[in-house]
């Protein structure tokens, strides 16, 4: 079973077309294995992206360098999944 320890979901708030284009460039970096939950389209929509642990430093550095604002929406995805499983087991019990 695939697990997601250390994966974070970042909510990125782009404020310009330039930042949207930068995020599109980021999304093409296949080696980072990013999973865009909502894609960079225009600056009225936040961009949510799941970032594997091994890519966190690179992504944060990229966002910081380009002064693109973001917040951490989910600190550890696996924690939420474990909680979801516990809830399901509790419900069955």
């Amino acid at each position, binding site marked *: *079973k695939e697990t997601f320890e250390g994966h974070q*979901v970042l909510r990125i708030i782009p404020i310009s077309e330039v930042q949207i284009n930068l995020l599109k460039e980021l999304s093409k970096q296949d080696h980072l294995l990013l999973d865009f*939950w*909502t894609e960079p389209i225009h600056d009225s929509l936040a961009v949510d992206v799941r970032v594997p642990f091994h890519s966190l430093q690179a992504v944060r550095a990229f966002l910081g360098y380009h002064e693109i604002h973001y917040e951490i*929406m989910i600190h550890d995805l696996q924690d939420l*999944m474990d909680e*979801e499983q516990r*809830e399901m087991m509790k*419900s069955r019990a």
Partner: protein
Amino acid sequence: SQPRTTDGYDYASYHTFSEITSFMDMLVQEKPNFVSKLVIGKSYEGRPLNVLKFSTGANRPGIWIDTGIHAREWVTPASGTWFAKKIVSDYGHDTVLTAILDKFDIFLEIVTNPDGFHFTHTSNRMWRKTRKPNDGSICVGVDANRNWDAGFGGAGSSNNPCSETYRGPSAHSEPEVKAIVDFVKSHGNLKAFVSIHSYSQMLLYPYGYTRTPCKDQAELDELAKKAVTDLKSLYGTNYKYGSIINVIYQASGGTIDWTYNQGIKYSYTFELRDTGRYGFMLPANQIIPTAEETWLALMAIMEHTKNNPY
């Protein structure tokens, strides 16, 4: 631990495909003259594509609702289950729903992508696509919401089998999509088609593959406004609404573009609620509020469909 009746089913919890199937069977057993289960096809891995039919008479026009075409959007099949129980509970008590069901059948496909849904429960919670292998690629599955014959292959879909928006080798290549296509064509009298996704709080109408407005845009926009206003009245949840291409992005091969082009005027797609903190991991305690508020919007669409025959 299986509940014996649909009253004992825990609507505020997430369930597996087999649990949802058992729920459907219970509902049919409890209301055999009102609810039936149609199997409109089989998934790639051989799971039944179950559709609940709510009907109070013969030869009625139909309203279609589907949930869960993207596997990881768990709140959609959970809401679909709640809708099914709501329809049974409210028929004969709620005058608006009763009037709708006295004229229309309602078809509800709760798990549109059962292989993917099963995979999210057993192997990868973040899986989105179907589970059919792709020739010549190690990557599995197709984005079933890019696989329809409406601008198929255009911008806003991918030809890379490893992409999350891989459109598939040809339109309707996925059995999960083809089954709905065949059902829609053979029924021939669906008047509304609502495909439900999550998350990001949107109610959208055609088109996604072209910037050309659909010919009913003014009416669809007005109805969307009414639907999201009704939805908001319950918990204050804000929805955006508009055409897919204007509100989100260009997306080719999408479900409701195809259904609209088939002549189903009231074709809509939802993106259900997000509390702003969880995305696809919406906690189970959010299922019922999500379903409750969405139901109000669905009722607005269904009632308008009833009142505006075409």
